[in-house]
């Protein structure tokens, strides 16, 4: 019925072309801002909840947490760490007693960056839990670093002195050794290396055991402008 309009041979003016695109762009921009603004609170809440759950998982017995950053030679409690500022999470039990640190760490895995969180208790110098937050390891092989319960469970009491070692499955003989996953040696070693590197980077900055910052009741929600 309106086929004539489509077959119009006279070219429309440039102004009309520009206006059409400008209006399309404007409407699209408004729609995108609308959806961004309306989903942002849910997305931020999801991220904060995921982080809380991960912290409570890697530090058994913890029910409260706060973000700690290293500024001017001491660990201080902050509500919102600055963008890209390295942060650790202090875990506290119900009475507000310090239990341990949950340390975020990341490094190259077999395919892409592995991001993880591990729990560390400075008084015993033990890693007490590990949770992979992000990874693109091979499904069925490398993804066992978070699917294999015995590998993940191996991080429940692991000494960091002198450093963690991944050994062939079934040959664990010292408190600082962990059984690597058969068929996923590179991914297992990557996890161990990431923890070792994070530990040596943070070790100097952590206060002496017993002198940890006290719980002040500031709930943290990840880095500022964390996108």
């Amino acid at each position, binding site marked *: 019925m309106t086929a004539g309009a489509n077959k119009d041979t006279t070219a429309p003016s440039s102004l009309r072309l520009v206006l059409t695109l400008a209006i399309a762009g404007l409407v*699209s921009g408004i729609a995108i801002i609308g959806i961004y603004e309306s989903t942002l609170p849910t997305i931020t809440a999801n991220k904060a909840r995921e982080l809380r759950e991960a912290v409570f998982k890697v530090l058994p017995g913890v029910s409260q947490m706060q973000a700690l950053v290293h500024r001017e030679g001491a660990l201080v409690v902050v509500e919102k760490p600055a963008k890209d500022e390295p942060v650790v999470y202090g875990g506290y039990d119900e009475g507000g007693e310090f239990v341990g640190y949950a340390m975020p760490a990341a490094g190259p895995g077999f395919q892409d960056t592995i991001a993880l969180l591990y729990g560390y208790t400075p008084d015993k110098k033990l890693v007490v839990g590990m949770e992979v937050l992000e990874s693109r390891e091979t499904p*069925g092989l490398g993804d066992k670093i978070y699917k294999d319960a015995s590998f993940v469970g191996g991080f429940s009491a692991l000494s960091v002195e002198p450093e963690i070692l991944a050994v062939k499955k079934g040959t664990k003989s010292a408190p600082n050794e962990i059984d690597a996953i058969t068929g996923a040696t590179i991914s297992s070693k990557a996890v161990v290396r990431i923890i070792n590197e994070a530990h040596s980077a943070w070790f100097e900055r952590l206060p002496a055991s017993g002198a940890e910052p006290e719980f002040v009741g500031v709930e943290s929600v990840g880095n500022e402008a964390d996108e």
Partner: protein
Amino acid sequence: MKKNESYEDLIKGIWRDNPVFVQVLGMCPMLAVTNSAINAVAMGGATFFVLVGSSFLVSSFRNWIPKQVRISCFIIIIATFVTIADYTLLALVPKVHKELGAFIPLIVANCLILGRQEAFASRHPTRLAVLDAIGMAGGFMLALLSLGAVREILGDGALFGIKLFSENFDPWIIMILPPGGFLTLGVILLFFNWIKFKKDEFLEDVAEAERSGS
């Protein structure tokens, strides 16, 4: 007559002109995210939303969009719907969004969607355009789901995350890796071409019989 026509527009995308198995469009998400049934459904759902939404708008404004800038307008409309789908998935199902990763923004570049706008929505009334989009997106989702289901069952011994076999089942890990996508798709395409071949053969036989009979 009119009713038949719109029914035809709706149904053609699901079987006769299936975007994946017959037109072989949208291969990139097809192969990349079908390693489990749930991912396939999420991808299919997002594509469905984008295709139906863009077809509706493109068809509604088809007389206002000058044809010199039509492709840019289509892309703007498609990209807006993709962004909406992206943020909605991130807010509602963050786990699935993480799995699909970069493939949600890449829906913009899915040739199935732009192809439908150019070939159908921009030339037909809104009602037919929406029906066509529903049919095509439904066909795409069906294709993703069949590929995802086959790969998850063989590669993980599960469907929608529910274990189907006993512990003795040794999963074919290759099926959830990229080669599994190509293998499964190849077998399904083979099947569709075989049907087409048989059908043509049958029609030829009928024509032959009619000729000799008359």
